[in-house]
């Protein structure tokens, strides 16, 4: 008992340490987000925060639920695997509210040229033309329907026309 009595000042000191430790834990509790360390050395909820950001591209599945006619036209042509928003741009807002958000029709002069302007850097098998030489300034959609671009029937060019 006398040993304990003599060591009392040490216990007081140890008590201070314990208090400091509790204070540390309390502060830590308030400054470290609850999900920190859930999966690793980071805030676990950051994952769901990032996943909750809004989308801008609706995805072709959304387009195809309404525009089945275009899907049919497209499925037979060369552009079957080109997704809607590759040309029409991000339209998630249109998909959510088709009545008030209406897409602007893309300008084929810019749009078609982006992919189909001939340059030596493109893969050889990819269909490419020199826009000036190919149509003499006539708009692409005069002959080619963008959803199914192969020229057929009445749209076929006369002999000696575009290749």
């Amino acid at each position, binding site marked *: 008992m006398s040993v304990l009595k003599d060591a009392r000042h040490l216990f007081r000191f140890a*008590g201070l340490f*314990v*208090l400091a*430790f*509790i204070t540390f*834990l*309390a502060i830590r*509790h308030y400054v470290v987000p*609850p*999900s*920190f*360390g*859930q*999966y*690793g*050395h*980071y*805030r*676990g*909820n*950051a*994952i*769901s*925060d*990032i*996943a*909750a*950001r*809004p*989308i*801008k*591209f609706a*995805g*072709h*599945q959304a387009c195809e639920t309404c525009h089945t006619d275009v899907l049919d036209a497209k499925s037979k042509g060369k*552009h079957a*695997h*080109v*997704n809607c*928003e*590759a*040309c029409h*741009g*991000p339209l998630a807002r249109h998909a959510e509210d088709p009545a008030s958000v209406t897409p602007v029709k893309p300008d084929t002069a810019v749009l078609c040229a*982006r*992919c189909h*302007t*001939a*340059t*030596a*850097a*493109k*893969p050889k098998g*990819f269909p490419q033309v020199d826009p000036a030489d190919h149509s003499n300034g006539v708009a692409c959609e005069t002959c080619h329907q963008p959803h199914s671009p192969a020229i057929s029937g009445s749209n076929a060019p006369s002999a000696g026309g575009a290749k």
Partner: protein
Amino acid sequence: MNLSRRHFLVLMPAAAIAWKAVLAGTPEQAENYKLSEHWWGMLIDVPKCIGCGNCVRACAAENDVPEGYFRTWVERYHVSDENMTNPEVISPDGGKEGFPVVKEDEKKYFFVPKMCNHCADSPCTQVCPVGATFVAPDGVVLIDQTYCLGCAYCVQACPYGCRYIHPEKKVADKCTLCYHRITKGLTTACCESCPTGARQLVDLKNPKDPIHEFLKTHSVQVLKPQMATGAKAFYYELDGSVR
């Protein structure tokens, strides 16, 4: 209950630790999306890329990427027979508006889309001093922008140059593999808008994903394999001159 002050002081830290474990609780996730069931990557089919810049524009639109910064970009290589290690590489405005027209010459030309490789052993996450960037359990390298200090260690650490400091937010920013899309079952904005299918989102944990058959039967490379980053952007028919 007869609890002495001493016992109370001993019990307090233990109680605090237990309380923390309770607070950590269960994760909040998108419905039906299980982190443990995915391991995301990207397949890039180099010969299919036509350098149209659709992916760059789509990425900028989807993710509000500031002007002059890129989460994905396209490079055009011009390589001569003799000097393969010194290719001439251009990427005007990240290839956003395409590339200048060129005539055929004796050197070879090709396009290479670049983006975050979502490395499994990513150098960028290892250097973060505050735990703001990490490899998520589904293999996507993400940034917690509320935690990031903007010290840019990660920008220097990325061997592929895929990170930047956001000019307004002043924090690190990068490709999230359209995490907000893939967790909803959609593909990334770049894959959605690629007209030739040169990019393909892949899930290595999905046994039905055609990527497994593709990787087995094709010669596929990652960028800078010597750095052992565990890169998950797989390039098909990648030329040796690409760095």
